[in-house]
């Protein structure tokens, strides 16, 4: 975590060091680790409703981070990530109907959603902006309609995940929680890795200006493909985990565009194009959902208005208010030039 490189600066003749870590990032990483350890013990220490709620929260974190990876770094505003959410959930139904172990099914379903993203990517990734946005939506609608027609998957009335009944209720709740936590760590870890490695600078260049990045020699297409497939895996996992958490799905809701609305809200409020922002956004959304969801349409009107407000006036979200005051990102993804003599 403290990789340092020496470079010669020709103008001054003195040595400079590029540092990847700093006090902020050490403290930040430590903070994330502590939170992670605490999270790992939630099923042991808390009552069932807390476990289930924390599972929902972690799923929101996954969704927000995946959408941010697409829009915040790839410049890809997808209105159709529900395609993978729904596909992941129904893949679990499909696999468990064929006697695959339910938790293994969730892993396979997530990977299969990544394959789906890979399959549709040649069609979608050459599009940009609004055209890309609505084309992803059409793909989601198409997949939703096809699954709606499959009577073996429950058709329009929905379907329950019965396979999990082999576990005792308390065990099932804990296992679902832990596998959700594991997915959260792996998926966010993948985003972090992409940002920390050489690809990170390229991704941030694409985020700031895709054409300029391309003309500076960044190969944008493979990077966008990586993000798109990663988001497919992540959203597929989120869908499969939602099913494991709620045990029942309907095509109209799991393929519903409201998932996109929630993702856009979380990322815009938290902070587009930062690692920490979507996590903060998921937290805000989680609280808002628990406080105001009873208000029905008014709640959604409020979400829409807040999203518009952030898009127009604070497009980098709440995290920009905090993050801009910190000397470095909370996790060691930045580069900092220091005089080597010190």
């Amino acid at each position: 975590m403290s990789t340092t490189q020496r470079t010669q600066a020709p103008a001054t003749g003195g040595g400079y060091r590029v540092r990847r870590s700093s006090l902020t990032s050490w403290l930040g990483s430590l903070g994330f680790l502590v939170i992670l350890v605490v999270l790992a013990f939630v099923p042991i220490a808390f009552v069932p409703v807390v476990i289930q709620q924390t599972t929902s929260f972690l799923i929101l974190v996954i969704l927000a981070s995946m959408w941010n990876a697409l829009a915040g770094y790839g410049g890809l505003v997808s209105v159709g990530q529900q395609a993978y959410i729904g596909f992941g959930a129904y893949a679990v139904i499909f696999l468990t109907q064929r006697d695959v172990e339910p938790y293994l099914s969730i892993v396979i379903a997530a990977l299969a959603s990544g394959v789906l993203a890979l399959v549709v990517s040649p069609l979608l990734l050459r599009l940009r902006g609004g055209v890309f946005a609505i084309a992803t939506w059409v793909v989601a609608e198409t997949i939703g309609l096809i699954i709606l027609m499959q009577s073996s998957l429950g058709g329009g009335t929905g379907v329950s995940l019965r396979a999990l009944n082999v576990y005792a209720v308390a065990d099932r709740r804990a296992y679902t929680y832990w596998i959700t936590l594991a997915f959260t760590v792996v998926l966010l870890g993948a985003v972090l890795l992409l940002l920390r490695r050489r690809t990170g600078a390229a991704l941030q260049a694409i985020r700031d200006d895709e054409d300029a990045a391309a003309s500076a020699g960044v190969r944008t297409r493979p990077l966008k493909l990586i993000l798109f497939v990663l988001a497919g895996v992540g959203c597929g996992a989120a869908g499969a985990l939602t099913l494991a958490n709620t045990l029942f799905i309907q095509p109209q809701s799991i393929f519903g565009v409201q998932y996109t609305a929630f993702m856009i809200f979380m990322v815009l409020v938290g902070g587009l194009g930062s690692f920490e922002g979507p996590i903060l956004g998921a937290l805000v959304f989680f609280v808002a959902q628990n406080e105001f969801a009873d208000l029905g349409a008014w709640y959604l009107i409020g979400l829409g208005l807040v999203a518009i407000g952030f898009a127009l006036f604070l497009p980098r979200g709440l995290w920009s208010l905090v993050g801009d005051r910190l000397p470095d990102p909370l996790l060691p993804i930045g580069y900092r030039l220091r005089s080597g003599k010190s």
Partner: protein
Amino acid sequence: MTWVNAVVQGVLLGGLYALFACGLSLLFGVMRIINLAHGDLAVLGAFLIWQISTSFGLSPFVALIPALVVMLALGYVLQKTMLTRSLRGGPLIPLLATFGLSIVIQNGLLQVFSADVRSLGGQAGPIAHASWTITDQLSIPVLGVVVLATAVAVLGGLQLVLRRTGIGREMRATAQDADTAGLVGVPSSSVYARATAIAIATATLAGMFLALRSTFSAASGPTQLIFAFEAVVIGGLGSLWGTLGGGIVLGVAQTVGAQFDPQWSILAGHLVFLLILATPRGRSLDLGGVRA
């Protein structure tokens, strides 16, 4: 003969989609914005017409006029408060802002008008259900012909305005390069305001026809947006007559698909759209999101 009937109905349905698509296409062409609230604005227009029509016992065609006034005023406010500002924020912001607007309109309508499904067919009188019977299995609905004729007139009129008038020249200039157009005395803000006005007006018109020929509810907007967008892409971005052709292809795909199985109707439209995306024409959409 049922197949001929399906194609005829599809062509007429295509007129409606072209009317929906026209405003979307214009805003994209001039401002490089894909307005994700386009369908919801059309449905809002339909609700306004429904409200005016039932409150005062007016025909929907008369109620259209005050509804247009209200919608244009709303469009002006949106333009001033949201669209222009969002354009300054880079290519992602207009998408995010109009998506937020779509959520607000949908749920606002849900709150005010409930989730009930409505239709303007009853208020319109005999024209809504009249048709010319050609043979037993082929009948041509009068309303469908009116919609298609309106679509041709609107698209043709718009084409004429864009090609032949000073306003049209200014729009084309701004579409090509807003900054340079501004330098020679064509302020982009007034051009954008006009384009938004036309888009809102045609959306309201399309919303009325949707409500006349079938049903609508607070949740109808996104589907109409998707159909409009498919019509634009199938027809080729930036071509108004292409949009009409795209609408008709989509309409025919849906009605012919429904002949196989009613469940196939919308799916067939989506599949034709995805097929077009995979062809060389779809590949030319590489330029689709290039900023102005």
